[in-house]
């Protein structure tokens, strides 16, 4: 996280609010364990420079994340990822829910029996390499 390189390659789309894309990116990192509970997140300035977005947008994203209790800021110390298990599992559930919903929406167009689909998912999931 201190290297910062991993923040640089975040592709933004132009049709979702930029600050929400930043929030979502944080959630993905938390859910995939690349940001762990209690870890210090980059300062607002650092993140703006790394992700090439303006300081206002970073500010809005951090505010949103604080409201959603994703990150905590105490006094003047740097913001940290929450250690609240409830929040962490909520993030996980949210991302998983979204992914499954997107998947379902796309396979629904193909008329496939649910058992066959689940079998296929199971086999692919086990075959797939562990990375990412």
């Amino acid at each position, binding site marked *: 996280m201190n290297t910062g390189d991993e923040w640089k390659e975040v592709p933004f789309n*132009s049709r979702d609010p*930029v600050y*929400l894309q930043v929030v979502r990116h944080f959630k993905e990192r938390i859910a995939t364990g690349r940001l762990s509970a209690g870890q210090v997140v980059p300062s607002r300035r650092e993140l703006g420079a790394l992700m090439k977005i303006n300081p206002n947008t970073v500010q809005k994203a951090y505010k949103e994340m604080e409201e959603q209790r994703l990150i905590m800021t105490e006094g003047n110390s740097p913001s940290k990822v929450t250690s609240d298990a409830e929040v962490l599992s909520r993030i996980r559930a949210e991302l998983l829910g979204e992914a499954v919903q997107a998947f379902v929406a796309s396979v629904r167009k193909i008329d496939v029996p649910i058992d066959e689909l689940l079998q296929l998912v199971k086999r692919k999931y086990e075959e797939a390499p562990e990375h990412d």
Partner: protein
Amino acid sequence: MIEVTDIRKRYRRRDVLSGVTFAADKGQITCLIGLNGAGKSTILKAIMGLTPIAGGSIRIDGQAPGPKLYEKVAFVPDRLTMPSGMKLIEAHRFMADFYAGWNGERAGELMRFFGLSYSDRIGSLSKGTAAKFNLLLGLSQDSDYILMDEPFAGIDLFSREAITEVFTSELIEGRGVLFTTHEIGEMEHLIDRAVLLQGGKVERAFDCDEMRGAEGKSVIDVMREVYRA
């Protein structure tokens, strides 16, 4: 806040501005978008008192433009504002001499960041370097607002990148930034507000993230609607 209300201007028997109204807030990056000849530069010049207007009003934090304005608002035009024969070091001295809000330390940092040399002559700067030096002169003033006229026009990729970096840095934090452009390009994710000019008037003015959230449209999408119609 910079408030432009119903400003009008005629030039060579043509209405360049026919009632332009918009505002640019402190702490926000506002982008004035318009095709070439839409009067973007004229608006910035009018705010800076560099060209008279035929009607309407301009207020900066409630005050009418005047000599005091020039400590509060910095302007980065699309051309050099120092004599060709001057060396960069002399230009620094000139600015320090005349502006109470000149921040020499920041100017020095920016010289290094942009890779400029104090002993160069203004007249010998390439287009990209000149744009960087122009920007340096504006950013090194401790002003509340900074106006930039086409900061990306006609310069090389690496100069563009260096200048884009400025927009993501503390250099503009807390300041109100108002800049003009005719193509949004890589700035799409960097701006807070967009003001679209068409036919001497403001066609649309919106908060970019709100537009994306509410209508799912990017700045480019809205530009397409306005300029293709």
